[in-house]
């Protein structure tokens, strides 16, 4: 297989536009939450595996395309209202940046670690979105609103997971982004600027998602909130993520 073919194949899993559309098309067709979770975990790991197993030398144009893909999907997230679609676009935007880490000679295991730690908050969001679909029939911003008043515990967890997903301290994605900026600023200042723009777009999209879901008056319909044990589960995962982030900062920065 030629190098270009390998890059194209890897570009499906570590998304490069237009191959990135494959992941979002697959996600759109899968309806079972557990299958979606599997897809999210396996997809970037396959990409990292292909890159390392093939030993392909990544050409410079891939860097440009990866940044363009990430920017494109981050920008498109701004107008999305469906939570799963939003999650899929964020995943696409995040995973395409793994190309940059791969180009900077990041060790294989660390790159797997990057892929996983970027994906864990997205998986949590998938589960929460399934919870929304179960309660309301759809996970859609602006459709019901006021979740903070209707189901306050669920909303608290949802907000924290979104905050973790969009690269906020102390979660791992924050330190990965910071490291990528440090690695690129001196040799490719424009790439560093693009990274910062992508980061900003995530924050914007995250704030829009939060506002669309939690803000508004409480619903008159009685809806079951999540219980304390479930909160304990989410809190534990988020705590582990934050600790992983702090640990990662010591390793990579």
């Amino acid at each position, binding site marked *: 297989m030629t190098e270009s073919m390998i890059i194209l194949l890897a570009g499906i899993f570590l998304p490069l536009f237009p191959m990135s559309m494959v992941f979002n098309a697959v996600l759109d067709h899968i309806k079972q939450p557990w299958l979606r979770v599997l897809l999210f975990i396996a997809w970037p790991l396959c990409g990292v595996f292909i890159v390392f197993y093939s030993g392909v030398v990544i050409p410079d144009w891939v860097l440009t395309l990866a940044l363009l893909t990430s920017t494109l999907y981050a920008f*498109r997230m701004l107008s999305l209202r469906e939570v799963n679609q939003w999650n899929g676009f964020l995943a696409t935007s995040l995973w395409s940046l793994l190309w940059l880490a791969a180009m900077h000679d990041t060790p294989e295991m660390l790159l797997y670690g990057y892929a996983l730690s970027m994906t864990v908050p997205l998986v949590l969001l998938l589960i929460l979105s399934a919870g929304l679909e179960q309660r309301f029939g759809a996970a859609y911003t602006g459709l019901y609103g006021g979740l903070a008043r209707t189901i306050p515990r669920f909303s608290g967890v949802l907000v924290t997971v979104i905050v973790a997903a969009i690269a906020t301290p102390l979660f791992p994605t924050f330190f990965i982004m910071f490291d990528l*900026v440090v690695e690129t600023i001196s040799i490719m200042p424009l790439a560093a600027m693009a990274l910062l723009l992508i980061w*900003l777009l995530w924050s*914007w999209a995250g704030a829009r998602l939060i506002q669309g879901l939690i803000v508004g008056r409480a619903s008159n319909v009685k809806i079951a909130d999540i219980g304390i044990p479930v909160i304990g589960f989410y809190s534990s995962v988020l705590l582990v993520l934050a600790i992983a982030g702090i640990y990662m900062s010591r390793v990579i920065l």
Partner: protein
Amino acid sequence: MNMEQLIIVVAVLPLISALLIQLFSTRIGRGAARLSVAMTTLSFLLSALLLTWALTGHGPQALSLGNSSAIMLFDPLGTLLATIILGISLIVHLYSVRYMAEEAAYGQFFVLLDLMTAALIFMVIAGDLITLVIAWYLVGVLLYFLLGQDTRSQTAYRFAFWTLITYRIGDLPLILAAALLYNAYDTWSLTIIFNEIMANPYAHQFLGLSLTEVVAALIGFAAFARSAQFLMHTWLPYTMDGPTPVSALMHAGIVNAGGFLINRFAPVFVNSGDVLNWIFIVGLVTAIFGSLLMLTQNDIKKALGYSTMGQMGFMIMECGIGAFSLAIYHMFAHGIFKGTMFLSAGGVINSARQDDGIPKDELYTFAVEKQPNKARKPWLLMAAITLVVPLVILVFAHLLIAEDYFQKQGAVILLFFGWVTGAQLIFATYRMRTQNIWRMVGLSVLSLVIVVLGYVFISHAFDLFLYPEPAFRAQLYTAASIDILRFDVLVVITTLIIVSGWVVTYYADQSGYRRRQQGKRLWLNFYALISREFYISDIYTRLTRTLLALSGRLNVWLRWL
């Protein structure tokens, strides 16, 4: 544990409080507020103790946070600001105990308040770039949720988002600066980086420019976003839908972070004179626009917001002329003043509903009914008093602290502003309807003397405490200086403009110029421009809508895949 290490405890206590409330809020209920207040009080007392320790000449010292690579600084700037932050935070906490009692998310509010307090303290004592960036970033995120405390209000969240996005824009230059400094010096430690910069400021280049100047410019941009400088200010006057205690904390503390950041990076700025000049210009423009917009608001809360913008402009301007410690004094004084205004606003409105309490005296007819005195004293005498008295007071006060004070351009600029303000005060006084004009002028002069002496001595004390090395202080003023001829010409032109303004105002008032039709259309257009706040927020709103529409269009074209 030695005394200096207590600074870490000061920062950690609010974190512990937040954690405990989060874990046990269902059990302790309203006790959350008591716990939060107790922890903040303890933290404040410790910080005050550490400030006293620093005042007696201890420190500076860099401390490691446990086994981590994070470094905390025990230094004059950090201890002073930690005490100020905790003082304001404690007042806000106490105020919130009853004010927020009706809120559904009462416990959560105190969690956020404690996290914000901790983030602010970590920010001011951070001794490495990573901790600084993390704390800087988190302040924006936490403020977003504090401003959006009322989750029923779409408006509150809309403007909280404006704050968040401006803060995020301000985070980016700081991250870039941190990355550049790390690449150049191979360390995150601020102390080491600053020592190396002071030893050889121009050792590194970036894109053909001096790295020190590039970093200074980036830090300047980060400070502008955080301190609501012109074009990045729109969030400030509109974030009044948040709870009053949050407004108080924001206007008294958080918005001042720009001044802190510039002070923290003083060793970078002392070698970046051109950047300081730009900072001065941005601060000046912000001060003028902020004050202008404040005077034209009919909504008291927006007027307060623009007043803060104007004050932030002054604070940044002080940094731009090399008066770094004065900016810290300014943020302290303004913080106390503005915090008091916000927290007492409710009580004042409530009392005013019963009785406005305003005596219908000379001050009322002058300031509220806008009826100046028609009978004039000899204008030459009054003009002489207006121009000379403030100048004599200011020069005398400054001579008391340093004879060479007038050799510094920055000091001359400050004197100039002091003179304009003092002259304006006296100019206004003798237009009042009063039985005894000389008594009023005397009282004005006396209050000016007290204010000027207080400001001169306290700012000098701040200077000695924050920047104990006289050579470094002199270097800051020198870095901010410009060519002496240009400086003199600028001072003369500005003086002429201001004095002409006074003369025009005087004659316009005398001859009824304002009642004429001439120039009415121009005046109305100008008024429209100001009442729409120069269309800046409209432009941003239009830009946002265009980007969102483009994003939606792209999604349609690409079939949502």
